[in-house]
């Protein structure tokens, strides 16, 4: 049941064609875990909390640094040196008291990833490194949890939604890791991609619209346009090829 306050608060999305109170109730009873509270995780978290997701867990082991502040909009000047999960948790819980916010200040690795993600309806990949993205992809496939990938470089952003066993996964797009480097990024790029990831999570939960599956969406901020690349499931994919 939605309370009168919830009906009023979410009215503008409840009246979206196909969304309705049914969709809002689905959101209220759903949970999303976001891996990372940085450039991608900040906007994704803000919009999921504003939309009235039931439970949101954010995983991040970092502390807020000055060089984060051009894009990681959950963290402000006053938060420098603070644990990111504390900083993010403070703002998100003040945004919407209806949402249960959980913070996990851990480094995601092979041994804790299941514990951190297995009870959630959707996993959002908002990491800043590729190694952890592949760990999350592998775990999502194994658990059967929908997974929303996002990544950025400069003014280029990419996003893709993965429904395990049904659609192409991250391993169907990429196989290996490049040399590590400090990546350039304009804050608006993860802003746009993080919001796309939040949109996809809401669509997965409510069942509205068509998902960003079997296609990689590429945002090109230099030319200010979006393009798509069709991605078929790869039978030789090391993650999903045998499903």
């Amino acid at each position, binding site marked *: 049941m939605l309370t009168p306050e919830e009906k009023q608060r979410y009215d503008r999305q409840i009246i979206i064609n196909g969304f309705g109170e049914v969709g809002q109730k689905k959101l209220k009873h759903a949970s999303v875990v976001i891996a*990372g509270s940085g450039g991608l*995780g900040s906007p994704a978290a803000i919009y999921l909390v504003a939309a009235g997701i039931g439970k949101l867990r954010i995983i991040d082991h970092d502390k807020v640094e000055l060089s984060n502040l051009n894009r990681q909009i959950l963290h402000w000047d006053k938060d420098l040196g603070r644990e990111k999960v504390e900083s993010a948790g403070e703002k998100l819980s003040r945004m919407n008291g209806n949402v249960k916010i959980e913070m996990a200040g851990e480094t995601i690795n092979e041994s804790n990833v299941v514990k951190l993600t297995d009870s959630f309806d959707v996993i959002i990949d908002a990491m800043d*490194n590729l190694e952890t993205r592949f760990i999350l992809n592998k775990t999502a496939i194994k658990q059967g949890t929908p997974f929303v990938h996002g990544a950025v470089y400069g003014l280029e952003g990419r996003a893709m939604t993965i429904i395990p066993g049904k659609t192409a996964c991250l391993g169907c797009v990429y196989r290996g890791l490049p040399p590590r480097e400090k990546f350039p990024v304009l804050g608006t790029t993860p802003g746009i991609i993080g919001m796309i990831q939040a949109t996809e999570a809401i669509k997965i939960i409510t069942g509205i619209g068509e998902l960003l599956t079997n296609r990689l969406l590429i945002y090109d901020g230099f030319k200010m346009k979006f393009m798509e690349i*069709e*991605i078929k499931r790869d039978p030789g994919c090391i993650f999903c090829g045998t499903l």
Partner: protein
Amino acid sequence: MAVTVNLAAYLRQYAANKENVLVMGKTVRECLDNLIKQYPKLKDQIFDKNNSLYPYVSVFIAGEIMYADKLEKPVKDGVNMNILYIIGGG
């Protein structure tokens, strides 16, 4: 065969900021070789010193990924080829 190669933003800096490049070739490999002939700086981004495709560079034609072992596959005239260099920032 004439093939249009689409380059995502990262790789464009090695191809005079071109978004699309028309290349000629009968196979995926020939198309990539022709692309590199036009923009030699792309070679080090796409191929390693053994002339093998880097595992973090993906080539797609009609949704199908062309790994190193598929580079001899024939291409059809007029198709689009997408080359993606993996990105992982957040």
